[in-house]
């Protein structure tokens, strides 16, 4: 092992050059960072001034879902895109093993998973005035899902494909829907009508948290819904030079 490590650590000429180059660049960037005066105001004051109009008390949630809600809308799409990409890549459906679930693990899961869902819902609700929100809540939903998958509970497999898709799209679609709804009411995309901002934000956050949780769990499972046909592997088609035709 030590022999391989030695060989591994030795850098060849190109790597040494690269290392030198990167060190120089990083040093340069460090000096530039040093010289930038640290007194640029940023947008803190602007946020503090408009905080009351945003409908939520937490400044981060106000920025995420109100002032720069359009960013967040596109970002939810990025998450969904990852699932679409993952499903387009895999040939096999979700794995179907349901063999040796130990009772201890099952007990832990039975205790933990509802608790995590509870914490996640609390985080989503808390997001309006303290740290928390759709992403944190969704992440914990996702973690609960992953825990159940690790315990080999086949919940993703038994969920009908259509339902899973609806759950995944729910958050993004609702986000776009609310944005358009606000457009018709106030004339601005995502310009929440007065007084309704906090409710609309909470609805968006709840829907997004569910979708994000499902997204993360299905990314972990790394397969496709079972409803779609399974493909046969044909090596003859893969060895030919292009696109499945010999």
């Amino acid at each position, binding site marked *: 092992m030590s022999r391989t490590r030695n060989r591994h650590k030795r850098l060849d000429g190109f790597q040494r050059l690269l290392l030198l180059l990167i*060190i120089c660049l990083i040093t340069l960037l460090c000096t530039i960072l040093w010289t930038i005066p640290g007194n640029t105001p940023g947008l*803190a004051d602007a946020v503090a001034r408009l905080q009351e109009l945003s409908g939520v008390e937490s400044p981060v949630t106000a920025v995420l879902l109100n002032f720069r809600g359009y960013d967040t809308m596109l970002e939810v799409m990025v998450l969904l895109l990852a699932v679409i990409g993952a499903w387009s890549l895999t040939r096999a459906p979700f794995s179907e093993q349901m063999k040796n679930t130990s009772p201890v693990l099952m007990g832990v899961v039975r205790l933990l998973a509802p608790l995590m869902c509870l914490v996640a819902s609390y985080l989503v609700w808390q997001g309006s005035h303290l740290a928390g929100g759709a992403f944190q809540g969704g992440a914990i939903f996702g973690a609960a899902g992953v825990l159940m998958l690790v315990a080999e509970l086949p919940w993703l497999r038994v969920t009908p494909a259509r339902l899973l898709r609806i759950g995944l799209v729910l958050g993004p679609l609702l986000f776009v829907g609310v944005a358009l709804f606000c457009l018709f009411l106030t004339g601005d995309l995502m310009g929440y009508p007065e007084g309704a901002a906090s409710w609309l934000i909470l609805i968006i956050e709840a829907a997004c948290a569910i979708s994000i949780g499902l997204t993360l769990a299905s990314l972990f499972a790394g397969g496709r819904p079972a409803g779609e046909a399974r493909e046969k592997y044909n*090596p003859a088609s893969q060895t030919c030079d292009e696109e499945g035709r010999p």
Partner: protein
Amino acid sequence: MITTLLYSLTGLILFGMGIFTLIIHSHPLRKILAVNVMSTGVFLILIATAYTPLGQGNIDPVPHAMVLTGIVVSVSVTALALILACRVQETSNLNLLGRKKQGKVPEESSK
């Protein structure tokens, strides 16, 4: 000020380490790890920019929102890249197998 600077420099160094690893290592998982370290470095600088010590004014929430967005993006990209890396390995493995058996379908098709 010194705190901001300290964490910013750490972020930059993490970024540099990430780039170096990304270029020289060829294992896909290592590349994905390197990208994650790089993105953490960038987020660290961004959050350090927003930092003001307790009692010296408001924290700028805009970089925090940006970092939250960035973290979610990087998790989704990481997941996609991992699945892609697995697929690359599977298809090329199966390809080798299939070539060895001269066109016969391998019994365990895919998993």
